[in-house]
């Protein structure tokens, strides 16, 4: 399939805008058309689930109903959105009564969700739809020698293991290797960054991120590749605070995995928002300069 209903989600409009830009650029270069779902709304994140089940699924389902109208599967780059939309699909499929209620709620906006659309993550689409061979053939700028820690985070693999193992996923490893990068051993690959705890209970989250940064450095990584806006934000924006709190000296760039694909395919770093990171990924940018953009 080369057309997807694109669901950026709230983070990709703001804090994770470099993720949004890089996904759009990379997919365009690989001949995949992303059609942004017109007037999409927040998926509800982990927050709405804590308040009211039916409302949480109903607002999430509005986006799926809009995608159904487009007749396309959904591409959702944010891990949290990805899991929430997946969960909505699964739980309303499991519970016919809930499905009925959700459609009654959607009817208030003249919408219906009765032909489920699949929800896919860009990592899954890149590796399992486009394929490593196709991507490899388009690499103009090998990332050989670049040492990258692959950080999957929680929600693209858990709870469903939709396209990879819940404990030891390898999809990103394979993708980065196809670009020529040296993928380091990374024991933190599916450990939690704390998500929203960085705002609500900072001390807990700082400790989690300390472990993640330390594991990357200890295994020789020069940068961490993430697939989630919250992971990226916590690891990047709080590095200084972690250094202060724990007497460390981390200065490790946190890029999105799509940035590495883009640079390898010869795309402009600025077009992918790589200049908007707080810790500049100099070693990656140096690679980009080697090719004409």
């Amino acid at each position, binding site marked *: 399939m080369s057309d997807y209903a694109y669901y950026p989600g709230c983070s990709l409009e703001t804090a994770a805008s470099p993720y949004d830009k890089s996904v759009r650029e990379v997919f365009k270069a690989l001949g995949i058309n992303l059609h942004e779902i017109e007037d999409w709304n927040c998926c509800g994140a982990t927050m709405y689930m804590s308040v009211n089940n039916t409302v949480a699924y109903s607002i999430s389902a509005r986006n799926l109903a809009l995608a159904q109208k487009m007749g396309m599967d959904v591409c959702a780059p944010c891990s949290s959105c990805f899991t929430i939309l997946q969960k909505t699909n699964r739980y309303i499929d499991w519970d016919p009564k809930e499905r009925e209620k959700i459609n009654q709620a959607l009817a208030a906006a003249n919408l219906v969700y009765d032909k489920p659309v699949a929800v896919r993550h860009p990592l899954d689409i890149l590796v399992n739809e486009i394929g490593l061979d196709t991507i490899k053939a388009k690499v103009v700028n090998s990332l050989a020698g670049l040492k990258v820690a692959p950080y999957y985070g929680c*929600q693209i693999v858990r709870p469903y293991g939709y396209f990879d193992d819940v404990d030891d996923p390898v999809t990103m490893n394979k993708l980065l290797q196809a670009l020529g990068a040296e993928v380091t051993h990374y024991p933190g690959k599916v450990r939690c960054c704390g998500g929203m705890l960085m705002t609500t209970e900072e001390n807990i989250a700082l400790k989690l991120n300390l472990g993640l940064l330390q594991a990357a450095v200890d295994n020789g990584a020069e940068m961490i590749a993430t697939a989630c806006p919250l992971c990226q934000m916590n690891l990047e924006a709080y590095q200084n605070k972690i250094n202060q709190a724990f007497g460390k000296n981390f200065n490790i760039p946190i890029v999105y995995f799509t940035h590495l694909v883009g640079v390898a395919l010869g795309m402009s770093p600025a077009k992918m928002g790589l200049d908007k990171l707080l810790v500049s990924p100099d070693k990656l940018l140096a690679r980009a300069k080697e090719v004409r953009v």
Partner: protein
Amino acid sequence: MIERIEPFPKSEAELRTAFWGQLGKFPEGDKIKTCLQCGTCSGTCPVSYAMDITPRQVVALFRAGRIEDILHSRTIWICASCYSCTVRCPVGIRVTDTLYALKRIAMSRKIYPAQFHVQTMSKAFIGNIYKYGRNYELGLVIRFFLKSNIVKLFTMAGFGMAMIRRGRLAILPSKIKRINEVQAIIKRASQLGEN
């Protein structure tokens, strides 16, 4: 002599009914009955060290008829939804979903731990969705810290500016065009859902 087993007090009985109702809202919710008390959930949880009661103890307290104690603990609000417990439970209990069920009961009955504000965040978040249809990060964070820790709000200003300069933090909320659709859906769904 056989000891007479006292029925649960009325408040606990009511909470148990509500909890069983919530456990019916996701697949295999009743598997909680098969908990082995093995502690895999607590062992795999990256934040259990910071909880006042562990996920294993949540199930134990439920069995002991002390749901209200669970709701007064910080545990359900510290869970970051990483689902490690869910994928590792040897009998397949969906621990994360079970904690969500407890959060919904806590929210609907306003039973919270003392001096704790995580639930404030959930309320502010859903308020934003109703108003704008999307999350409004700056508004959310300001509202949260005004309520929980005003001093911290000022210490975050530098970081906020750095993000604004990079176009990674919006000063104004982004509002969807057909917000009336989202509001109509929320209103109708609230009438249909029981909590």
